[in-house]
């Protein structure tokens, strides 16, 4: 889930309320020691889940959606070829199986038989091909184009028979199934003749039907009787209510008006009383990007000094309520199977900071840090921690619109300021970070880092057909990033989801805040 612009909207009025509210709620939200709802036994049929989420900032449109709320609403109604579960494992959904040939350049997907769209139309290879052709057509302006990058190009999707779809890639890509999974969130399978205006034509193969939508207030879903998973969903329906303010949402959960929050901010909510928090690891993070092509960060030692100045465990506590995992200044999250295991974790080392800065000839390092409201807390923590080792940070906060505005090739602040904080939503595969962020041709290379060894290793990684080779190439990339520090990555975010454990079970956190409510049931 990319940057959620609404988080910044939420900051507009989140002034005095925050801490005081938490303190108040902590004072009256005493855990009454009630037993947790039975997590075993057969699931109950029936019941309606009332979920809160941020109001989508745009019309809900699967082809162009990028905010967490729109993605979640679509996921209630539509399905992917492959789901990504809460451990980021691939789970067959509309595709039953897939095979690779020609050195990972041709992928054949076999569709699950007997699946129908909610209007009764059978799911076939034509609908799947149309869904991907739609995303690949530039005039439809899908963010999936960035995800497919130079891997899948228009014309690369063909049908072999009604149950078989073939993807012919522009280059070998061993992680290709992730690109057609929920990890590429726009890739839901819609009918071949889908022509937009999803909230008026919400036809999918998912567990629920969208029966009512109001952009100001919320959405109503009922059980899809034609859903392909036998017996599911257990719920009769889901009512989603939109919120512009995370505190209002939390209060609604605390007062029993909501049963779950789709997008839960770990720093805002606590488990107390009936409210439980499910946790998951995530591949989302906030990168501290340093421009390697201009002073003061054109010297590697200065970048390393910043990396050694951070006390990562306390960053985790301060900005993420302790639920994240420590980052090691490379782009391989612990959740990725190819993440290097034997690279020592970088720790705070004030003596080393002094030594490195002296070696670089910048004993009194001072720089401006540019960020937008969602990363305000992290910016303040960085400023305080760097001050302890004699580094001065001037905070330069911009509105989200300004920070992400401008031209991505010439002047947009998030790609062109000397040092900045950019929140990155979780990606399904590490190459989706490495390729755009730190390769010579990367479209979002804010550090301006160029390293042919990294470029080559990434190509080799993507083409690798066995795990040992992938591990080897991932280690080359991770070592280079850890050493050169184009981005300081102190933390991989965790994800949480808050829900009322006394009323519902089966609600889980998801690394990308995705929703699968097909297995949720009343207690």
């Amino acid at each position, binding site marked *: 889930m*990319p*940057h959620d*612009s609404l988080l910044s*909207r939420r900051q*507009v*009025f989140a*002034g*005095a*309320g925050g801490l*005081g*509210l938490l303190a*108040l*709620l902590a004072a*009256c*939200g005493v855990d009454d020691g009630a037993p947790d709802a039975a997590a075993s036994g057969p699931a109950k049929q029936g019941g309606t889940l009332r979920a809160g989420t941020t109001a989508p*900032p*745009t*019309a809900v449109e699967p082809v*162009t959606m*990028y*905010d967490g709320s729109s993605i979640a609403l679509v996921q209630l109604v539509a399905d992917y070829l492959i789901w990504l579960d809460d451990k980021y494992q691939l789970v067959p959904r509309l595709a039953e199986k897939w095979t690779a040939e020609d050195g990972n350049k041709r992928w054949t997907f076999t569709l699950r038989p007997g699946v129908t769209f909610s209007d009764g139309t059978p799911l076939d290879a034509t609908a799947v091909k149309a869904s991907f052709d739609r995303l690949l057509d*530039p*005039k439809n*302006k899908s*963010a999936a*184009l*960035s995800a497919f990058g130079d891997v899948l190009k228009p014309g690369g999707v063909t049908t072999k028979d009604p149950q078989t779809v073939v993807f012919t890639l522009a280059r070998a890509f061993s992680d290709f199934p992730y690109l057609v999974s929920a990890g590429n969130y726009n890739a839901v399978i819609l009918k071949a003749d889908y022509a937009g*205006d999803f909230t008026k034509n919400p036809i999918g193969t998912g567990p629920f039907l969208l029966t*009512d939508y109001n*952009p*100001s*207030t919320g959405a109503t879903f009922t059980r899809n009787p034609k859903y392909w998973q036998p017996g599911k969903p257990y719920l009769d329906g889901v009512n989603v*209510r*939109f*919120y*512009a*303010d995370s*505190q*209002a*949402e939390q*209060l*609604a959960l*605390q*007062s*029993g*008006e909501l049963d779950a929050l789709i997008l839960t901010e770990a720093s805002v909510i606590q488990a107390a009383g009936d409210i439980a928090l499910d946790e998951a690891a995530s591949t989302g993070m906030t990168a501290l990007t340093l421009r390697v092509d201009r002073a003061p960060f054109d010297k590697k030692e200065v970048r390393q000094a910043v990396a050694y100045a951070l006390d990562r465990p306390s960053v985790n506590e301060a900005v993420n309520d302790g639920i994240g995992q420590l980052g090691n200044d490379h782009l391989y999250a612990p959740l990725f199977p190819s993440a290097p295991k034997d690279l020592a974790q970088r720790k705070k080392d004030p003596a080393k900071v002094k030594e490195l800065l002296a070696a670089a000839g910048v004993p009194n390092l001072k720089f401006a840090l540019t960020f937008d409201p969602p990363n305000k807390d992290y910016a303040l923590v960085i400023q305080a921690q760097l001050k302890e080792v004699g580094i001065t940070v001037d905070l330069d906060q*911009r*509105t*989200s*619109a*300004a920070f*992400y*505005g401008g*031209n*991505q*090739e010439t002047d947009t602040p*998030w790609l062109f300021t000397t040092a900045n904080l950019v929140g990155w939503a979780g990606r399904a595969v590490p190459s989706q970070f490495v390729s755009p962020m730190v390769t010579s041709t990367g*479209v979002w290379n804010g550090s301006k880092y160029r390293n042919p060894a990294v470029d080559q290793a990434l190509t080799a990684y993507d083409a690798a057909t066995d795990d040992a080779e992938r591990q080897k190439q991932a280690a080359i990339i991770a070592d280079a990033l850890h050493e050169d520090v184009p981005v300081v990555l102190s933390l991989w975010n965790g994800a949480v989801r808050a829900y009322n454990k006394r009323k519902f079970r089966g609600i889980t956190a998801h690394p990308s805040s995705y929703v699968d409510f097909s297995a949720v049931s009343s207690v």
Partner: protein
Amino acid sequence: MRHLLLRRLAAIPLTLVVISVLVFLATEVLPGDVARQILGREASDATVAALRQELGLDRALPVRYWDWLVSFVTGDWGTSYTLKVPVRDLVFERLGASLLLAAFAFVLLVPVALTWGVVSGLYHDRPLDRFLSVTGLALAATPEFVTGVVLLVVFAVTLRWFPAGAQAPPGASLSLRLEHLVLPAVSLVLLCLGYVARHVRASTVASVRSPYVRAAELRGASRVAVVRRHVLRNSTVPATSALGVQAQFLLGGLVSVELLFNYPGIGALLLNAALDKDLPTLQAAAMVLGLLYLLISLGVDVAYRLLDPRLRLGVAA
């Protein structure tokens, strides 16, 4: 009187045009880009440029303004750039919600504030007056966000007497809708109370000290009769303008209460439209609110003339 009305009414369209130009120019200089907002950070510049062209944002500013103005005046308010729904429906739905909340808060505010101010004025400079004045001042100085949070935590989360959200479920009866509006309305009343009561108190003090009240008291009229016949009327006239100011505030200045109580009013719509640079929505909301403001201030002036004998009879004060 009629002359005044006609002159003021004639000025309204011109004022609205000025507002619309200002909103247009202000939106122009705001950072950000609605096309980028619609497509997200990860869309390429070329894609964003294509959408800008589709929305007609690449045309010259005067051309865009003129187009908007002609459409708006002919009743075509356009479609929201971001939400892709007709602006007219969106604005009127949100305005209806805001009017309901504002009216409810106003109905609670008037008797409470008038009583508060009159009692304060009658007991001026005595302990009761001091207590009421300081309390009113303290409440006015407390942001509605804070009083709102306290009300929510006490009455919605802990006691569960009232719902936490101001939005009743779809198809709710009016009484249920009002029940949902109690907490937000009370937090607004607490905010506005001090301001209105202060005005009422000042005029109450003035009329208690006025010669005719003294004369009435000397004639032996009972205190109650004097207050009812003279003081009340004279002290509530000046409150009209204070109430007018508050009515305008209640209509448009509710963003924080709308956010906290999750109420889809016009304040939050204006805020989001401005942040997203969703110009058709922003313009329509500004026009509708502007018109209401102008009508309220006109209404206040007319009421003032009708209520104040000096103005009504054209006697020099």
